[in-house]
């Protein structure tokens, strides 16, 4: 492609025309300071119409930085007069990908604009690859959905608070107000991916069980109490919030687990001895673990084991049968 170089009056550049813009908005102060100090190293690429009006193909921030500096003109590379919209878009994407890694929003914008010229996902991913984007058809499908996400969700993706897979699920499943609350929680607490998945699954199930409860989820007193508790650090807040949600999602299991732990405390197991119930109380195999450093300790624990076997609380634990506990009520 044959570019020409030309001095262009900044006022003749329409920076509001964003048809080829790929980059996300961001501060330009540092860029302006650098241009002021060492000059414009890479001229922006413009498309010049017959009447002399220009639109930006690549280099929006450079143009804006020069304007901020009070300059009147700028050296620019000019697209060939016969360049098509598809050519300009290709240059815009390549100019970005050759210099840096596009963030997810930018990838989504680029693909969304490219999709006007290419048919299916395979064709689109091949075109994107030719322009320096590493995307397969599956990812293309996901990335294309980003541009339709709400502003706050896009921001959360950009900030890294919410991974793409979670963001897409959030937008597809939840009401806008609940999605907003979840975004706020994830941005505040930064839970791990697995924690986010658990929270989303529980919240999704809770809404399905009681659609009317949507409005209160995460904004009720208990959740707000954890989220605003100044004495709790971030990991403890995450644990606290997850515990509240888990108990709401699995109330019988939580109550049963409480009963089990209460009995365990009453047993006063000898030091070094622990009791491990079957996973989810589904199987009937319990384990008692003895952790000792000396023969004396072991003898104490063995004596403790004998006492344990006669303890009614121990029996109710291994029978998984707690008086006054009715799972159906």
């Amino acid at each position, binding site marked *: 492609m044959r570019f020409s170089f030309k001095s262009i009056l900044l006022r003749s550049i329409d920076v509001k025309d964003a048809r080829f813009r790929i980059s996300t908005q961001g501060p330009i102060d540092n860029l302006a300071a650098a241009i002021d100090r060492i000059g414009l190293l890479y001229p922006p690429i413009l498309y010049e119409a017959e009447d002399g009006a220009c639109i930006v193909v690549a280099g929006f921030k450079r143009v804006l930085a020069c304007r901020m500096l009070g300059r009147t003109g700028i050296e620019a590379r000019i697209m060939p007069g016969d360049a098509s919209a598809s050519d300009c878009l290709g240059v815009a994407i390549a100019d970005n990908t050759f210099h840096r890694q596009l963030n997810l929003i930018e990838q989504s914008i680029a693909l969304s604009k490219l999709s006007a010229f290419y048919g299916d996902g395979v064709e689109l991913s091949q075109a994107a690859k030719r322009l320096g984007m590493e995307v397969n058809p599956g990812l293309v499908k996901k990335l294309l959905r980003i541009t339709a996400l709400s502003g706050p969700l896009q921001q959360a993706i950009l900030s890294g608070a919410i991974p793409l897979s979670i963001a897409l699920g959030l937008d597809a499943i939840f009401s806008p107000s609940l999605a907003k609350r979840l975004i706020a929680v994830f941005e505040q607490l930064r839970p791990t991916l697995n924690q986010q998945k658990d929270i989303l699954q529980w919240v999704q199930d809770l809404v399905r069980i009681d659609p009317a409860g949507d409005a209160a989820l995460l904004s009720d007193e208990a959740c707000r109490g954890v989220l605003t508790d100044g004495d709790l650090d971030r990991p403890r807040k995450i644990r606290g919030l997850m515990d509240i949600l888990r108990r709401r999602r699995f109330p019988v299991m939580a109550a049963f687990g409480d009963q089990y732990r209460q009995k365990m405390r009453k047993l006063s197991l000898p030091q070094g001895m622990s009791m491990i119930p079957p996973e989810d109380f589904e199987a009937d195999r319990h384990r008692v673990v003895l952790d000792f450093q000396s023969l004396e300790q072991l003898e104490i624990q063995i004596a403790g084991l004998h006492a344990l076997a006669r303890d009614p609380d121990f029996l109710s634990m291994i029978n998984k049968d707690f008086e006054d506990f009715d799972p*159906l009520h």
Partner: protein
Amino acid sequence: MKISTLYIDSDVADLPETKAIRDKMKVPCRVVDGAGHIHDILSNAPDPEGLAKTVLYLTRNRGAFVRDCPGTSHYTCCGYRILHIGTFCTMDCAYCILQSYFHPPVLQYFVNHGDLFAALDRLFGENTVTRIGTGEFTDSLIWDDILPFSERLIRRFAEQKRAVLELKTKTVNIGHLLPIRHQRKTILAWSLNTETIISGEERRTTKLQARLVAASQAQAKGYPLAFHFDPIIIYPGCETDYLFVIDRLFQSVDPSNVVWISLGTLRFMPALKTVIEQRFPRSAIACGEFVKGLDGKMRYFKPLRIAMYRRMIDRIRSHAPDVLIYFCMEDDEVWRKSMGFIPSDRGGLPRMLDQSAIKCCDLAADDI
């Protein structure tokens, strides 16, 4: 569900069963070489399971017609045998495991009935009591209005004394079966559930009252009966609802004519949850308190299962102290805590069921 297209495997195009169905159905029909084309159509549909219920594929059962119940590890199986007449179903229950059991699910009806009856002859030649049913991979009676197949089966079972056939259904499509000479070698069985579950989760099935009336009519014609509370689904108020169903059941039928009643709480492979959420957006049945069972299936938290079973067994026993109640796929702990014994105390579950079949269905019992 109305069948919109009939596909016929070229291999069975000339069978009399195929011709009879084709004449009866009067829908667009296409002869194909294998199921590949149907798989493609279904796999690319936005709702493969929904579409599959409108596309009937007549084909040959190339495998065994008589199979052992697949059962599952760690839980007690009843030792049932399956007469494999077809797959999938025209009714549409949210909890149906067939939605995720077949990939994609294809509504197949096997029409090589000559081979099926030959397999039955071999089965009848075995010197054992056999309980066999057609309702494992499909509903037993959904195709009876296009082919009088169940009638043939019932007549064939009436000619022998070793095996009992169980026709399990959610339909009330039994009028044509009532006059048949069955010799009590066919059990007519209904899946029962609460009105809440039937109206909310079982699309295109019959109402509870209709099922109970049909059962009563079958009983009047001498058919032994069975009932399956499976899946039992736990929801607020379910206990009262299930006990009410039990009361109504025994207002409709004579307990001494009931061969068995099975109980099984909802269980499913994890993949089914996504299917339910997509196909039944208002259903919350997959959001119960489930844990992953020892066989990898999701099951209700065990204390919940046991509590529900205890209530239901107590109520059934109050109406029918002698009827055989059994669990479909539960372990000894559940048996002991809910029933007060474990199957091995009584010779094992298959033996318990065989004995009930012998007693209620007049089977020859030389080998028991």
